């Protein structure tokens, strides 16, 4: 009985899918998957929840524009999303431009900004309530949400911060925890239907990476800069070559952080959307037999990627901070460690994940 019902529901779904392409097919001849997918993963000035035959369910978000000549203007995006002009503004492929070509700064509450505000609110509510639970249940075993989130907090503290940063880890715990839970929550929220692809936006990841760079540079000690400008254990001519290489490494590390997170999350979204698009490309409901399981598989995989990427970002941030804090201890051990030094230098310039992942183990000794 249950199986029959499931089958029936499946057929209904396919019937629904099948009806759509034929109808829309008449209106717009070519289905352009690339455009649709990019539209889904990119930022926009309106929040397009979903569409039915009865129309689109869209929330129009406010546009805040600053023109050096005319000052600030605030209006609903409803006036310009369909390509109209409002005042001297119009949207060109989701970019706010002026009709006369003058300079405009777009401070609009876009879909991503709205999602960012919502997710930040969620994070604040969740963690402040968890913190309250800690106060209320002092001396008792953790329960509920507190019990669910506590292992992650402890994991970040013990496995990431303590191992990668060392004894000074406590100062960096708030940043690491914020980054971890911000990325994780937003990755998960990004997977919900209709939500924004926030952590798959390069501006968001770049900002996080720059913040990591700033934290790293501010916590760096003399030894860190010695390694960059006068790499010990390397022959003299090589040292001069190493300076630019190491300097590039300083920038490449956060750059790789930003790109890794952005690419992983966006790629996941693109893959899922591609599988769904297959149905419309082949104009056949039967493609669903292939697309739906594959899409489901990738979705589940994305759940794993969501936490994995949050973890990797946090771990690498902790490692960079740990590297900047590391004390010089090679001379005490004589020449035996010169080789290790060179190894570090190579890792820095290469920026390879796996080489970096092994670093705290070496550094720990």
């Amino acid at each position: 009985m249950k199986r029959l019902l499931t089958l029936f529901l499946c057929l209904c779904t396919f019937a629904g899918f099948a009806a759509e392409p034929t109808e829309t097919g008449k209106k717009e001849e070519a289905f352009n998957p690339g455009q649709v997918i990019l539209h889904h993963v990119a930022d926009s000035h309106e929040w397009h929840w979903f569409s039915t035959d009865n129309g689109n369910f869209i929330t129009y978000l406010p546009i805040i524009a600053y023109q050096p000549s005319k000052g600030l203007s605030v209006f609903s995006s409803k006036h310009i999303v369909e390509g109209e002009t409002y005042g001297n503004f119009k949207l060109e492929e989701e970019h706010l431009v002026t009709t006369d070509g003058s300079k405009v700064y777009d401070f609009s509450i876009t879909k991503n900004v709205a999602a960012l505000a919502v997710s930040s609110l969620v994070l604040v509510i969740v963690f402040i309530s968890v913190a309250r639970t800690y106060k209320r249940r002092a001396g008792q075993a953790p329960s509920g949400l507190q019990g669910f989130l506590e292992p992650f907090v402890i994991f970040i503290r013990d496995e990431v911060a303590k191992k990668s940063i060392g004894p000074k880890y406590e100062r960096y715990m708030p940043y690491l925890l914020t980054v971890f839970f911000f990325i994780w929550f937003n990755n998960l929220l990004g997977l919900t239907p209709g939500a924004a692809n926030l952590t798959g936006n390069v501006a968001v990841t770049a900002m996080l990476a720059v913040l990591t760079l700033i934290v790293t540079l501010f916590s760096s000690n003399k030894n860190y800069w010695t390694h960059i400008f006068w790499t010990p254990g390397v022959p003299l001519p090589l040292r001069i070559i190493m300076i630019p290489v190491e300097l590039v490494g300083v920038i490449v590390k956060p750059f790789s952080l930003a790109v890794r997170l952005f690419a992983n999350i966006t790629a996941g979204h693109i893959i899922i959307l591609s599988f769904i698009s297959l149905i419309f490309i082949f104009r056949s409901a039967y493609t669903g037999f292939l697309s739906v399981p594959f899409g489901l598989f990738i979705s589940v995989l994305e759940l794993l990627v969501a936490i994995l990427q949050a973890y990797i970002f946090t771990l690498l941030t902790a490692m960079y901070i740990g590297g900047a804090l590391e004390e010089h201890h090679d001379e005490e051990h004589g020449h035996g460690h010169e080789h290790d030094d060179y190894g570090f230098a190579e890792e820095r310039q290469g920026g390879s994940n796996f080489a970096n992942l092994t670093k705290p183990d070496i550094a720990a000794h």
Partner: protein
Amino acid sequence: MSLITPEFGLLFWQTLIFLLLFLLLAKFAWKPILGSLKEREDSIDEALRMAQNAKLEMQSLKAGNEKLLADARHERDQMLKEGQVIANRLIEQAKTTAVEEASRIAQQAREAIQQEKNQALAEVKNTAAQLSVDIAERVLRRELAEPAAQQNLVDAYLKDIKLN
């Protein structure tokens, strides 16, 4: 291309909101959470250490008790043994004293008897002597009533004496 160019507006809001989020969470969430976790871990450590100490103390206490018990038992045995020895000695002593006393009394009795006997014998001798003298007196009185008989006796004595 728009996918990989960071939007200025989003960058601005992200910086603003993320820093705000960081400050809020750091002050109102991470500080109490990490503090409570540390507190709890410290209290667990403390409790475990105390339990360990209590266990050790208990063990030493138990060992002490056992030692005390063994000592007490040993002492009891010792006392019992000593008591036995003392009792035996006392009995022995009593026995010897009794025997000595008995023999002493017997000796005394014997001596008293001897004395009594001697006394009695002496009395008997005296009486016998008295009797003999009396009898002899009476006999002599009768025999020497005549002067001839007295002469005869003196003669007989004189004969015997014979002066050398």
